[in-house]
């Protein structure tokens, strides 16, 4: 990583490259890379058949299904809601706009455990919303729907804050041209604006999805943690650790980690694509 060639070295007028780079790499290795590699090394003590047994255990498979399914559903809904919020925030002026804008960051700043207990209180059968939905036969708390709502709360700022700057930078000349040519606002939105907003929307979706897969604090309270139905993968890791089943926990974690890394790759590619289309 510290490859230097003479031409690059000559361009270095500023001091401190060796020192700052050396410190950065050392600190990164100590705090992040070495600890993470423990997961990989720990799995070498794990035979293939044992790994396969754990990874394909019905309860483990069900937990992946719950985690991926609810995270995808939440990110999808957040995509639509986030577009609406970003649109209103960028295009219109209205009283209370500053509070509106600040509130969107709340899920970033609020500890996940607080979100977890308050959403559960809201949606349990005697909570404000739960008691309204209960007579209709809709149960939210302790069902996959509850997990999805918790993940929507966690994911919404990712979509808004990715779409918002792109929407702010958009020139209006294309929209004006479309209007001159007789297109209505709705048609202009779908043919001119939406194609340009699609890359950031997809990036926001991917960010919310990736966060949702690994999320723990806001979910454990509302999910009810029933094996096969509402048990998420991170919780399964937790309970295996509590039973000192390090091998099993490692196997579940490795697959979760693999999915996260794939998402990171997808997000990086998407962001590069979004930057290219917007410039």
């Amino acid at each position, binding site marked *: 990583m510290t490859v230097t060639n003479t031409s690059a070295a000559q361009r270095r007028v*500023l001091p401190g490259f060796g020192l700052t780079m050396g410190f950065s790499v050392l600190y990164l290795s100590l705090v992040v890379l070495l*600890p993470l590699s423990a997961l990989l090394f720990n799995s070498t003590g794990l035979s293939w058949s044992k790994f396969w047994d754990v990874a394909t255990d019905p309860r483990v498979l069900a937990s992946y299904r719950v985690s991926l399914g609810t995270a995808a559903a939440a990110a999808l809904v957040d995509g639509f809601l986030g577009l609406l*919020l970003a649109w209103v925030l960028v295009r219109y002026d209205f009283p209370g706009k500053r509070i*509106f804008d600040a509130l969107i960051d709340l899920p970033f*700043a609020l500890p996940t455990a*607080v979100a977890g207990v*308050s959403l559960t209180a809201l949606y349990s059968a005697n909570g404000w919303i739960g008691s309204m939905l209960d007579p209709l036969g809709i149960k939210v708390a302790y069902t996959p729907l509850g997990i999805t709502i918790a993940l929507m709360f966690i994911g919404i700022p990712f979509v808004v804050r990715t779409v918002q700057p792109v929407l702010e930078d958009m020139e209006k000349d294309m*929209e004006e041209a479309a209007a*001159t040519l007789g297109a209505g606002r709705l048609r202009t939105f779908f043919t001119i604006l939406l194609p340009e907003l699609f890359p950031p929307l997809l990036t926001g979706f991917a960010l919310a999805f990736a966060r949702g897969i690994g999320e723990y604090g806001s979910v454990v309270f509302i999910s009810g943690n029933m094996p096969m139905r509402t048990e998420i993968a991170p919780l399964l890791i937790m309970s295996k650790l509590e039973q000192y089943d390090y091998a099993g926990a490692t196997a579940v974690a490795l697959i979760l980690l693999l999915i996260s890394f794939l998402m990171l790759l997808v997000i990086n590619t998407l962001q590069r694509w979004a930057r290219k289309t917007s410039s």
Partner: protein
Amino acid sequence: MAGTVPIYAAARPKKSSSSPATTESSIVKWVLIGAAGLVLFWLIALPLIIVLTESLKKGWDVYLAALIDPDARSALRLTLLIAAITVPLNTVFGVIAAWAITKFRFRGKGMLITLIDLPFAVSPVIGGMIFVLIFGARGWFGPWLSDHDIKVVFALPGIILATLFITFPFVARELIPLMEDQGTQEEEAAITLGARGWQVFFRVTLPNIKWGLLYGIILCNARAMGEFGAVSVVSGHIRGETNTLPLHVEILYNEYQFSASFAVASLLLLLALVTMIIKSWVTRKSVH
């Protein structure tokens, strides 16, 4: 991945003018604003309001009793201690890494940025678990540590390590795009005029990045004080000893002491609100 949104991107002033042809009719406009308001109220404001109403449900006496309870006070002390240790460490790293990455050209830069982002991509539970695998009773160093009577997991060092891991990218991630945009010309001019390395940093770079740095620090701090998943794995939940505020919320909740649990949660909500206020203040500062 919180914090990947650079502060100045969300705060750029609008440049486009609006004409009747590129705006919606006022009915559509107000319907959309109303719908957005409803979404915001339902999804974000309601959970916030619930914390306050639930915490005061049994009156101020119960509320205050929950906060001055010795276990709550020790959880608050531990949470503050953890933030006081981890935030400065990751801030120093963030500034140094951002300097190395944005002021020089070298091969593998993209790779290094991706590696810094890693903790954002990893589930918090895994972030705690790796330290159990290394330092836990049945982990690599477990036998050696217990022979020498050193506790890492289920003790303060483990909580600090897990929090360091989780909050690792916040400051660096905020500074890198900001310093990338600012380039190196001002610093190079200062060097040419005879300034030393430290002078360049404190007189030229720091004034340019101070708002972005402050934003990164408050985000890092909010996460350090609020982290739940990773800390939950390594803490061992020993009341009065290794219990942080978010873990205390969980313990009280699981004991059906809902009012007390929400009272402690309201402290953390206050932390989030202060973070948001500083954020919007910093955003406005950095625009003007």
